[in-house]
């Protein structure tokens, strides 16, 4: 079972420069743990405790997983997960 995960420039140091990697799992949580076995440290850049870090956006196909179920979002064969750095800031 393979799920494609697209990695942004800032995190490609964890994937040997690769723009996308393959992983498996039944939920986003499992997928990220699976990826971490080969790309050590990647999960920690995306997850803080039980939640996704606020500095990243993670999408399952076309949907922000924050609106689906966060780390508990079910994933499956043929899905594409996209990681983007959140763009935010401000005067305060």
């Amino acid at each position, binding site marked *: 079972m393979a799920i494609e995960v697209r990695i*942004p*420039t*800032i995190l490609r140091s964890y994937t040997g420069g690769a723009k996308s990697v393959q992983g498996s799992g039944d939920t986003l949580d499992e997928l990220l743990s699976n990826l971490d076995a080969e790309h050590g440290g990647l999960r920690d850049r995306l997850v803080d405790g039980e939640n996704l870090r606020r*500095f990243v*956006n993670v*999408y399952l196909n*076309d949907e*922000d997983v*924050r609106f689906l179920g966060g780390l508990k979002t079910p994933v499956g064969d043929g899905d594409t997960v*996209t990681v*983007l*750095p*959140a*763009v*935010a*800031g*401000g*005067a*305060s």
Partner: protein
Amino acid sequence: MLTISSDIRAKIIEHARKDHPDEACGVIAGPAGSDRPVRFIPMQNAERSPTFYRFDSQEQLKVWREMDDRDEEPVVIYHSHTATEAYPSRTDISYAQEPQAHYVLVSTRDESETEFRSYRIVDGEVTEEPVTFTE
């Protein structure tokens, strides 16, 4: 150094003035590796706030995919401060995750004059850079 057209500068300032007193934000895309900001993409500030901005995540996905398809990258990421100077705040620095991008800040605190400044933000370190405007 950032080199950008006067036309795009005018569009960024127009966007910032229009959204004032809320912060405005957006991207100028350019061919990957070229360091040339050519395609102006105003973004929604999902926070609609005078002190914070965040790209709407769905809009960002669409725009980032479009850039990918066109072999572009975000050459400039801009936003406005509406009551303070055009200098990166601690929040700006903590979120800055595009080391190849020029972070442009404009300040609309003065009604007639708009500050327009550019920075590199890499690993939490801010470096202001000169800006050259072309025709």
